[in-house]
């Protein structure tokens, strides 16, 4: 590589610049690195399906006949940069196909009933995968449609007001000398992080709004991203506590429950899980009607959170009403 050419394909692990940027800048660039598809479930699934069932690219709407001697779908195979089978290869492939067809016919006749059964099982598994893929595509389209139309919807709903709970934190969590750190998603302006840190806890934040992370003067303990995604990166049983706010107001119901279970799986026995849901009436009063109509979810009542906590197996579940003019409730439980 030439000296003047830095390597920043944007992928995981790729250094972004020649000189190390600040923590806030590094986090900004890391967000893009995490968008690289290699390794994601969707990428791996599509790549596997593609290898199992290679399909030629779709034919363009208007084509001219190719030269005589070339296969009729030669244009459909795309630009030269994508050419994998060429003219000579095409002829050989056609001959090979004929031979293979004959060979398959002979092999099929020769094969016994067991081979036939294996083939049927393989076909059934293959079909199941294809149907699963279709269902997944539909689900993803459904979940994306509102976000595609209104990408800034999450910014239209009021931010969770978590500040008043800072002084209560010491009573909720195990002593700070306990192993493991506490994660707050969404950490917003970082007030809870600062309060917990002042008490001696190891704390990390997750915050989906880039401007919040940036405004936090590059707190290296704050990761930019969706809480569900980034919390999912944490090893199971690693955390001494999880606080959830903001995101648990906006997520749809399955998303809320999934995040709760995720938080539970990331904590050690005895750890504390807390949600800080915005009061429903306060949320409605502060939200534009369009956001209320279109947002996938709205805050659950604290009674409902208490029921959810009890159902997922948290012990000592307590509901704290807003204090001092605050707008958020607190529901706290302890992992058994």
């Amino acid at each position: 590589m030439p000296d003047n050419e830095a390597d920043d394909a944007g992928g995981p692990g790729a250094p972004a610049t020649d000189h190390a940027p600040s923590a806030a800048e590094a986090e900004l660039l890391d967000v893009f690195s995490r968008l690289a598809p290699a390794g994601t479930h969707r990428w791996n699934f599509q790549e596997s399906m593609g290898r199992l069932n290679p399909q030629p690219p779709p034919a363009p709407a208007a084509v001219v006949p190719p030269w005589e001697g070339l296969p009729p779908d030669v244009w459909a195979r795309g630009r030269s940069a994508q050419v994998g089978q060429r003219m000579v290869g095409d002829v050989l492939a056609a001959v090979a196909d004929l031979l293979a067809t004959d060979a398959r016919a002979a092999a099929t006749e020769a094969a016994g009933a067991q081979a036939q059964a294996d083939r049927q099982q393989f076909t059934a598994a293959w079909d199941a995968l294809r149907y699963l893929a279709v269902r997944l595509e539909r689900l993803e389209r459904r979940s994306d449609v509102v976000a595609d139309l209104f990408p800034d919807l999450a910014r239209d709903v009021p931010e969770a007001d978590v500040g008043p709970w800072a002084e209560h934190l010491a009573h909720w969590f195990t002593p700070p000398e306990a192993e493991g750190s506490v994660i707050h998603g969404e950490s917003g302006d970082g007030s809870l992080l600062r309060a917990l840190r002042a008490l001696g806890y190891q704390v990390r934040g997750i915050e989906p709004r880039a401007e919040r992370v940036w405004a936090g003067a590059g707190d290296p303990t704050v990761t930019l991203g969706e809480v569900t995604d980034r919390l999912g990166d944490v090893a199971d049983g690693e955390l001494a506590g999880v606080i959830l706010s903001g995101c648990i107001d906006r997520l749809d119901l399955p998303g809320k429950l999934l995040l709760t279970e995720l938080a539970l799986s990331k904590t050690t026995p005895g750890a504390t899980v807390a949600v800080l849901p915005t009061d429903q009436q306060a949320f409605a009063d502060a939200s534009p009607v369009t956001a209320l109509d279109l947002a996938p979810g709205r805050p659950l009542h604290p009674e409902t959170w208490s029921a959810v906590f009890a159902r997922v197996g948290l012990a000592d579940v307590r509901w704290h009403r807003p204090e001092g003019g605050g707008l958020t409730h607190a529901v706290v439980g302890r992992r058994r």
Partner: protein
Amino acid sequence: MAAIHQFVPMLHHHDAVGEHTMALQALLRAEGVASKIYSELPDPHTADRTSPYLDYEAEADPGDVLVYQFATESAMAGWLLQRDQPLVINYHSVTPPRFFAPWNLGITQIQTACLQELAMVAPGATLGIAVSEFDRAELREAGCPSTEVVPVLTAGRHLPPADAPFGRWLQSVAGSTTWLSVGRLAPNKSHHLAIAALFAHRMATDPSATLIVVGSPAEPHYAAALRHYAAQLGLGDAVRFLSGISEAELAACYEVADVLVMLSAHEGFGVPLVEAMRQGVPIVARDAGAVGEVLGNVGVLLASTGPLEVATAVQGVSGDSEARERALAGADEQLQRLAIASAGKRLVEALLAVAGAGGQSP
């Protein structure tokens, strides 16, 4: 007189290599040199201008010179190497496969094969013509025994007058400062760094700055990630992605732009740099590939691309008219120095010299 024929995997309009190939054919024919274009596959839009490369075997003349427009993997590479006629490689830079590795395994494999083909054909070429010194170094490294540098012919074309209605629309959505980033949406072009820098610029200095990204989605995952990234940073309305626009519309983009931001990590030439200098748009660019030699002392050349560093550089060249003038100082001289206007003449002379030398290196 010997014929000088060109071989290109596929001939496309609105494609740097395709337009370069057609321009060279016109120049050769204007000199009275017989010149055909052979391709591996036909493009429906240019099929009447190309012949299948295997047809050449029946038409070959021992005095011919064969010019291979090398930009991608092709079955023609090995085939050309086996011809008796002298071979000239016109090299258009190959994006190293590592840039695609996190994004597209298929393209990564193709780019790897492409570099292998370059190493295969370069030692057997009579002459290698690179579009920049940066590319010449790659040709030499691949084993090309004799090399010259002639800029890509498409750099010589002037953009038409700006499309006025399109320009008005751009103005209506532009912010107080409008950044422009031009280039295929491929990982080596690093448009994501421009988006990150725009975010930093808006946070630190100018909350209403906007970015126009012009380029076809050459790598679809990267292109999708760019949109996702902009949305995730809250820049959904601040970053406009334009693709498939006309040259008049591109001219309108330059007209509305306050700065061209080019942060490519690998650039064989960088035609947008020339376009920006001609259109009077200040440039902030990363010092990578051929960018430094194309830009000379014009604009701001960055050694690193931290968002704040880029944002600060942009602020420095677009703050006021004086800053703009300072950033464009020497642009005309640099364009002269690049000798883009005479590139066609030099390219034809180099090929005629090969033909005149009977296939020996001139």
